């Protein structure tokens, strides 16, 4: 298969970016999208140019490291997969493919298609955990958890932190990401004692870092490679309101 690639190139955070056009040919339909970029990069190195920089690691859809806008969609046109799991057979021969980095204010560009997503870690650091230190915990079966609840928590916990939800949202909202973690821990008995503090602190941090609010367009859900449900956002809103209204606990730890 042959393709024309329009790729965003930008040397660093402050440099001015631009689209560059590349032609690539003889690509197997079984080749993954990132392998196609590898082939392009090897040819660029052979021509002594700087390869296109993009984040990637596990290449099996679980680490959340890869992510780019492909033809206007985070992770490309396929549903429920990350960029590394996208195969060239999903494109048509001769197609022009436009590749851009995540564009959101809290994700500054590092180089080309690589953006800085450490803002997501900062939100987790505000309470995306159970404050259990190592040792001194009860037996794993001491607190029973219904299968239904455990499965639901697992679905929320499947988030890979890739940032596609933020990139897809016109408000650059991180609500789907934050609500997935809030939900997982709110559903489990282990997360209950800190639930009220957690939701308030995480939401405050999210706002603080410049992520927008949710205006219910659900682009995040539509583009999420792990198909995290928007019902998590509803649960987070409920948790947040209840915490604000009912909780007299301080948000300070």
């Amino acid at each position, binding site marked *: 298969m042959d393709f024309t690639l329009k790729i965003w190139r930008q040397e660093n955070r402050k440099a001015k970016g631009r689209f560059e056009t590349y032609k690539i040919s003889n690509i*197997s339909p*079984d*080749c993954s999208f*990132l392998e196609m970029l*590898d*082939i392009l990069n090897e040819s660029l*190195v*052979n021509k*002594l*140019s*700087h*390869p296109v920089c993009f984040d*990637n*690691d*596990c*290449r*099996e859809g*679980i*680490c959340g*490291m890869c992510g780019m806008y492909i033809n206007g969609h985070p992770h490309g046109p396929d549903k429920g*997969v990350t960029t590394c*799991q996208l*195969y060239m*057979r999903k494109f048509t021969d001769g197609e022009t493919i436009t590749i851009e980095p995540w564009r959101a204010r809290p994700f500054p560009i*590092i*180089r080309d298609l*690589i953006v*800085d997503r450490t803002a*997501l*870690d900062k939100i*987790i*650091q*505000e309470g*995306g*955990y*159970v404050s*259990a*230190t*190592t*040792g001194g*915990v*009860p*037996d*794993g*079966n001491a607190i*029973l*958890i219904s*299968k239904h609840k*455990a499965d639901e*928590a*697992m679905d929320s*916990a*499947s988030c*890979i932190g890739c940032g596609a939800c933020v990139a897809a949202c016109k408000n650059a909202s991180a609500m789907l990401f934050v609500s997935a973690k809030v939900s*997982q*821990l709110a559903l*489990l008995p*282990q*997360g209950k004692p800190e639930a009220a503090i957690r939701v308030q602190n995480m939401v405050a941090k999210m706002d603080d870092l410049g992520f927008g609010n949710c205006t219910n367009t659900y682009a995040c859900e539509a583009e999420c490679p792990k198909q995290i449900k928007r019902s998590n956002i509803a649960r987070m809103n409920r948790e947040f309101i209840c915490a604000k209204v009912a909780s007299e606990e301080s948000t300070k*730890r």
Partner: protein
Amino acid sequence: MNTLNSKIPEGQLSEKWTKYKASQKLVNPANKRKIDVIVVGTGLAGSSAAASLGALGFNVKIFCISDSPRRAHSIAAQGGINAAKNYQNDGDSVDRLFYDTIKGGDYRAREANVYRLAEVSNSIIDQCVAQGVPFARDYAGMLDNRSFGGAQVSRTFYAKGQTGQQLLLGAYSALSKEIKAGTVKMYERREMMDLVVVDGRARGIITRNLQTGEIERWAGHAVVIATGGYGNVYYLSTNAMNCNASAAVQCYHKGAFFANPCYVQIHPTCIPVKGEYQSKLTLMSESLRNDGRIWVPKKKEDAQAIREGKLKPTEIAEEDRDYYLERRYPAFGNLVPRDIASRAAKERCDAGYGVGATGFAVYLDFKSAIERLGKDKVEERYGNLFQMYEEIVAVNPYENPMMIYPAVHYTMGGLWVDYELQTTIPGLFAAGEANFSDHGANRLGASALMQGLADGYFVLPYTMQNYLSDQIYVSKISTETEEFANAEKSVREKLEKIMAIKGEKTVDSLQRELGHIMWEYVGMGRNRENLQKAIPMLENLKKEFWSNVRVTGDLTSLNPELEKAARLADHIELAQIMAKDALQREESCGGHFREEYVTEEGEAKRNDQDFMFVGVWEYKGKDQEPVMHKEDLKYEFINVQQRNYK
């Protein structure tokens, strides 16, 4: 001269760890704050160690090669984590987990370390549940288990097919809590470039900031290496693209001994190789072998027809299928350990019964499981794996058997450590896949997650205190010393040298060459002749690299080509001792299969008389032959037998 003292505590096996903990030295809380610990790597072992040491009150710095600890490749482990809870009442116990792990490792692991691993396994499950890890549960609300290769009990805890992800996110959450508390400082997008040794002790590291190219110095009273294994030496493996052994090789060059480099695990259930462009191999969880049955056609002509696309697997009658694992190993069937399942697949394919376009694939069939359990149940158990398979291969595994073939997956060898997980350099510790300690010559499924978390949560927080107890008299380590300056200088020189070559070959092409040599000559089946060929080939490749590699870009900005080149240089070094170690080990054991040493039935033949030792390699300097030392393995509590899964 270093002598290998494994520091195994005296006494009964079941009392060693308890006694150790009761008599080890501690550091009081006021002093902990004054002690700096460096942790390199943020996977299960690194994150759990940093979180636990931070919670104890030490000043921890942790270094992550990616943008976030959650990217570490522990995240990709699918199947599960073992523990001796015996929740299923099927006869499990600490003793049995210990025995299975030692036997699975083909009697090449240290008894005391493995027993401790089995002992702390239950605490890991409790810890993870307390963190909010959503393990699978049954309808009564209790933790569910599944069975895994090499065991006859169900002791594997799991979270769908994403157990590694959930455990890593658990460790990451514990780490995040400590980062918030200020006990741990996180440095992302940093790669360790050298170890700094001062007066014989590990005192710091040199890193490269991957965003800016800055070379940075970091000092500490102790250093933990938790940077994973070296599977990417083979180029194609199930490891992630950024997995590399550079940190371990730097430690080896600075005087840490490297143990059993030849022990590499080839995982039996991976998606077969498709083409030259392929960048990595994808694993299909071993848990699939619980319900999937592995087979190839009984008749060569059927296999031939399938390869040519004239016949479909579903058209082959039951009696014309060879369920070769069930045939050869009736007691364990499809659940034999990984090394055995891998070799059996290779044997069938080499004999001409392989399927797929290349002939290097076997079937993993869920037909009878779907008939027995129903499609819904199969989907509930393996849904995400089936979906992943379909995405990659574009074949529906509910209707057609999956195709699988073995691929490099895990490395049992690693930095040599004693009972305290301390390397031969005082103050340098190694945890998780980066050390060699617990899996002998072969690792059982669901044991890597167990070991990474055991080391990080429950071993290092004790053993490191024992070392650090007298470090309270050492004031803050300065980075403004000759040792740091020299280490930084050598890093700069190495990188400048790589950039200056401006040769003809891309890093990727040299990496593929290395992978080819290793897979063909130091791969699944090894023999003297091939190993002797590999050694000069690797020497030539090293010369080729240092004279003909082409790296574009510059030193002072984000430059993935430079990162890959520096890692490749280290991988070639490691490949050389892998080949040498494989050559000296004239026996077949676990993942190391020497074609000259087989039983009459074609099974691996160990030589306990001459090879019941750990092969421990000491670096002697550039262009010098490394020297191998031996740590004899003494089995005092277990009856050493020929492994038998029949």
